[in-house]
């Protein structure tokens, strides 16, 4: 399961660009820092961890379901 800590997100877009399944997108929801935080389409996510790797802000956690 992909967990997103939206409060940490600065909307750099690295994860959106790197995601091999195009499962990530910058949502409409603005976090407390004022960024449109990243969101996931769980149907598309394969939990490969690429988003975790490229994220400068430790937004992502992948937990075994």
């Amino acid at each position, binding site marked *: 399961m992909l967990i997103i800590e939206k409060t940490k997100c600065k909307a*750099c877009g*690295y994860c959106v660009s790197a995601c091999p399944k195009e499962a990530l997108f910058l949502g409409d929801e603005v976090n407390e820092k004022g960024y449109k935080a990243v969101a996931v389409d769980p149907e598309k996510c*394969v939990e490969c961890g690429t988003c975790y*790797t490229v994220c*400068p802000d430790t937004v992502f956690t992948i937990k075994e379901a």
Partner: protein
Amino acid sequence: MAAERKAPSTIYGVNSFCPGCGHGIVIRLIAEVVEEMGLAENAIGVLAVGCSCLTNRYLALDLMQAAHGRAAASAGAIKRCRPEKLIFTYQGDGDAASIGIAETLYSAQRNEGFTQIIVNNGVYGMTGGQMSPTTLVGQKTTTSVQGRDPEVMGMPLKISELISSFDVAYLARGSVHNAASIRKTKKYIQKAFETQMNQGGYTCVEVISPCPTNWHLTPLQAVDRIEKEVLAYYPLGEFCEGGVR
């Protein structure tokens, strides 16, 4: 089956770097390697002056902030006094390759036993994007207004190549501009730390890193620039193998 991924507990709070800044990735890689090696209670970092010092409030290790350019000198002394600990510096290119180039090169020359991490983002970040030793030819900054002109400002400085003239224990240049490079850079940091703890001697990893704010690019344009422009001048790879002296 997906592998679990979780930020290392050695990272705490929320970092105060700009969106898309590579520092967050490099620090996470250091934290991952330190934890995987089981050294969180036995590691001491020496931070520089500049954006790198924001690490103080982000990385849960014993940390010292050295004077500008002098982290390598202080870290060399710490390693001599505490040889059983993992000692590393965390510096920008302005700190390590400009004002601190003497301390950097003489640490390599004396084979001081710490690991020097040099984040090369081609500008002075914290002071607002001035030309640094690694600013590329033609790159506009607040102090190379028409772009770096090698006729009067000289060519960008290759710190790893300079270090490689000494018989050091490990030296590599990585990057954090895409997932594959990030994974490789983590291996470099791991090799550097393992070499330090097992064989000893000077180890260094230079990391090419984006500074979207001072490059006046979006984060995605910034990593694209690294791929297309920066790596042509600063090729990635290991300069010497870890553990072989």
